[in-house]
Every structure is written in C-alpha cells, then in structure tokens.
C-alpha cells in the first residue's frame, strides 16, 4: 500500500505524471490515466491526495514510480 502525507505534499503532480507513465507502458504522460490524484484548494492551500482502485502498486516496475518521483517525502510504501 502507498501511504500519503498531504502535509508534506507541495502539489507538484509529479506522482500523477509518473503513475500515468506506468499505466501507459512507459509511452506517455497523461494525468487522466493516473491512479493517484492531487487536488489543491486555492482558498486554503489544503491539498488532498488520493489513490483509486486502479493502482496495481506498479507491478512490473522496480519500485512504485509515484514514490520514486515525489521529491517531498509525501508518499511511502508500507510493508
């Protein structure tokens, strides 16, 4: 499972890019193909993170890509 920490998240959406790269067989970037979503309330700066049921924990990858590319320590793999 991927653990999410919205406090640490700065809203860069690199996890969405990375996840779509995984789901498209490394062919493209397309946030609509991402299992994870980042949403920011522009009135409060509160960020919401979520992962839906299409997440396969990056089957076939060396490591979950959304975790690898998050530079802010907002995502972790729980074992």
């Amino acid at each position, binding site marked *: 499972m991927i653990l999410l920490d919205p406090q640490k998240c700065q809203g*860069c959406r690199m996890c969405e890019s990375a996840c779509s790269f995984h789901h498209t067989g490394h062919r493209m*970037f397309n946030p609509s193909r991402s299992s994870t979503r980042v949403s920011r309330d522009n009135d409060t700066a509160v960020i919401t993170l979520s992962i839906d049921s299409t997440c396969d924990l990056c089957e076939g990858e060396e490591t979950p890509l959304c975790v690898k590319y998050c530079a*802010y320590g907002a995502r972790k793999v729980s074992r």
Partner: protein
Amino acid sequence: MKPHGYAGRILRVDLTEERITEEPTMRYAERYVGGRGVNARVLFDELSPSTMPLDPENMLLFGVGPLVGTLSPFCSRVSIDTKSPFTGGVGSANCGGHFGAEMKYAGYDSLVITGRAENPVYLWLSDGEAELVDAGGLWGKTTWDTERAIRSSRNDNEVRVIGIGPAGENQVKSACILSDRAKAAGGSGVGAVMGSKNLKAVAARGSLPVTVAEPERFIEAVDAARKKIEQFPKAKLYRKDGYYGVESVYGSPAWEAGFRPVRNGQDDYWDPEKIKRVAGDTIKPYRKKILACFGCPVGCMPWMVVPDGPYKVEGEGWWNNSSNSFCTRVDCDNPEAAIKAHLLTNQLGLDGDNASVVIGWAFECYEKGLLTKKDTDGLELTWGNHDAVITLLEKLAYREGFGGFLADGVKTAAERLGGGSEEFAVHIKGQDSVDGIRVSKGWGFGVVTSPAAGRHLRGAIHSFSPERFLSYDGVPWRVYMQEQYKAILDMTGTCLYNNGLLSWETEASGHAAHHLAELTSSLTGMHLDVERFMRIGLQVHNLEKAFNTLHGGFTRRDDYPPKRYWEEPVKSGPYAGEHIDHEEWERMLDEYYGLHGWDPGTGWQTKETLVSLGLTDVADGLEAAGRLP
C-alpha cells in the same frame, strides 16, 4: 500523427471575428522548438511595425514547450509574448503554475490571439475543443474571484486559469497575467494587452496525452537531472524554506549586493535594522506552506497568512523581489503591510516589480516637492508610508485619481510632470525597471541589453561572490551565453528561478544545457545536442533583437543604463562609491556586439550575421526598412 512531446496544435483565435482555427505545431517547432521560440518567430513574421501595442491587431501569444507536462524537472512555464506597450519593442514574460501543463493536456502547444472581442470573453480549452465564453460577469473581478467563478461555473476544481485582474482590464501598463492566482507573467505590459483585447482569462482542462519518443532514454535523462539537482547543496534548503527563505535571510549577501535599490534607487544599501524586520527569517512565521508548480521538484512559492490586524490576508505569494518592490524601494519595513501589498497586486493583476517603480518615483517627487498632497489625492507619499503604497496600488489598478496619472509607466508620468523628475524616472527603453544594477555588473549588463527591455530574465547573470559580481571582466561573454541558455529554458518550458540548480553559471550545474538537450531530444525524437540548441537560442534572441530594431527603433543609444544609475554611485554600505564606469560600459558594449556579430556603431545586426544564422529573411526585412548598418 501527433508528434512526440507536443500537443500537436497551435490555436489561432481572432477575437474580432470570433474565428477559431488550428495549425500544426511542427510548422514552427521543427525550427524553434516551442514556447518563446515559436512565439518570437510568429510575432516577427506576422506583426506589422505600424501596429500599436494596444491596437486590436497586436498579437498575444501563449506558448508551452515540449517538456511541459512531463516528468522533466521544473517543466511548468508558459511564455507570453507580444508587442510591449512600454517600449513598442518585443514584450515577453513567463510564468509557472499549473496552467501550462493543463493547456497542453487540453490539446494546444501555443495560442495566437489577435483582435478585440466586442464584449468581455474568456477562452475555454478542453480536449481539443476551444470556445469563446461570455465573461461579462467576470469583468471587474479580481484574479482570485475570477478563478473561483470559472471553477464553480464549470463545477470542476481542477480547471486551471490564467488571466488578468482589474489592472489589465484598465490597460494599466504594469498589469500582468497571472496563472493560478499567484504566478505572474509580469513586465512588458502583457496584462494591458490582454485587457485591450477584452480577454479576461484562458481556462483549460484536459486529458490528452503527451507521448514520448524514446521512453527509457527520457526517463534516464530525468533521473540524471534529478540527481544533479539533489547534488546542489541548496536544493534541500529551497524545498524546506523556499527561495526567499534561503537567499533573503538576514546576513545573506543578496541584501548588500545592490539587487534591491533603496528609495527609488537613491542608494543600494538599506539599514540592517530594517532588513531584519523583513528578511527571510522574519517572514517565516507568516508562511503556512510552500507550494510547487507543476513538475517542480523543489517548490518556491509560499502560502502566506497574516492572521489579523489591518493587513489581514491569506494567499499564495511572496517572492525575492517583494522585498525590493514593497520594502527597500519605498523604504517600508512593516512585514505585514508588505505581504498585504504583494497579495493585493496578485488580486488586482498588477506586477509588483513594475508598479513599484512608478510608485517609488512618485515618493521621490513628493520628497523633492514636485508633487504635493493636492496632486496625490491627499496621500502623504513619505518614505516608509506603507499605507500610502497599498492605497496607491488600488488607485493604480483602477486608474483612479492620482493612480491614473501613474498608470502609463514612469517614463510617461515623468514626461507629464517634468520639473527634472525625468532624471530619476528609472526605465530602460521605456520599460519601468526594478533592478539594482550598479553593484553586480553581469546583472546590470544583462538587464540593460535585454531585448525584452529592462528585464532580468534574459542574459542577466548573478553570483553571490563579490570578486565575481563587482568585476567587468568576462561579463559580455557570460551574458551572451546566458542569453542562449535562457532561450533554451523558455523554448522547452523550464523554470529558471531556482537558477542555482539548472543554470549555465553555477558549478553545480555547468552541464545544465546538456540535461535539457538530452531531455528534449529523447522526448521529441529531434536531435538537439547542446550546440544545436544554443544556436537555436541565438536565433531566437536575434529574432527578438530584429523585432526591436524594426518596431522599437532601438540602437546602441538604447543599451545604456537609466540616467540615475549611469550618473550616481551607491551612497553607503560596503559598496559605497560603486558605480558604472562609463569607459568600461562602452568596452563591454563593443565586446558584446562583437560576440554577436552586430555593428558596434549602431548596435544593429549585420546581414552577414543574420545570414550565417539562417535568418536571411530577417536580414531582408531589416534591409527593406533601412535598418541594416
């Protein structure tokens, strides 16, 4: 087939005719990559020198580069180019945020906007569809309320909006265009041009892909660039405290190196007690969070909260220059008032850098008795009066009373007032200029010679080591290289701001251009090695230079600093007496024109140089206009 790395389409919108057409991006991108590169070419080819900046015929271009919307670091930027209302030459600004990536996912690499809508509209982009939508109900709203209203009418919180506030609507020259309420494309009067077109905003939502030509090579290039960034010792600090929180702490050399002119540039050194009150460490408690643009692995934009009192406010924004614009320039050391002023400019759609120049000038006129309370609607423009600054920002945005007097920029205001006020009206080629340029020579030379007049986002280079920044040696060459490198950033859509991380200058990232070349080549399948990329950068720079010669009529005469900085030395502090040496400046200009292959007498481009750059048609255009030496 859709080209790798691109949305594939350029959208053309004629607001007068309400006509929307498309053309393939690669018509231009094969040669000019994207973003500012494509914008510069279209602008040069299609805009007539007889068109005035606020005429409907002026063009307003938004462009994102191939790297935008991918995993490439800092891939957030949108380039906005036009004919500048300040100078009549090229106007160019860019911003980060999340709009650029969304525009690409919505199906467009560039937007070429002409004409003037009969009534206010906004442009809606979604999955390859574009539509002009009535914006009568949005006109008059702040940028914050505009975003809120568009999101709520679309019932979608992920819509990304770029647009103007009241300042742009009122065609105030210092109006900017803001993405996500906070990321300003400032300078060059781009907001005024958007306002003149009755175009309130562009909103985008998309789910179209950006495909990758060589995925494994691309992801290796991403990993290599990310590794490089992490090797830079400040990366972690930036992430934790934001750029301002690091470079502007009390004691940082940036405070003394003349980047923040004091009292409209009467000096470049500020009382340390005052610095303490607005420095990075003091500002920190007001910062609730730091936010990142799309694809940024560092993040620099703080979310500020002043919880109560007269300056109660909350929102995204506070930047290095805020402590110039709303602090040193007007000698104000109240941090809460300064934060309020910054966030107010975001709401009103004013560029703080530009607006503060004409405000600082007005304060100095008041000090010298050239303006009195009778002229200023009763405001006391005494140094340090932060309430007057805040009131003036409002008046400026709405062209109300004395604000209207200031709204056309400092050059025009000084011409109107006269009385010697022209002597301290700080502008370059007519563009209000915020930068301190007497101490750091590379910064100054880059700012003054920039085709996007008076702006620090072209060849300006800075370093925090005094041996380096005080010296004239090698400045022309470094500026010349930085110009080309900056063009690469702007063509690909990469952010310069954490410029220690990916810039030409720093030791940590001397190979930054290699990273960008590798990222772009593997993404698009084009063969862009560093040499070819830098050459395209040079072409783009030359296109803008030629645009300036044709449209702005600039010559060598226009590549000199504003009068105040040319004649007055820094008055106090460790760099007291530091000034711009006239002979050194002439020598630098000669060397710089020589590097470019431009004519030192006129400062114009030569036929040989343009032909050797593959810009024969540009040379022909200049020749026909009698603008070749």
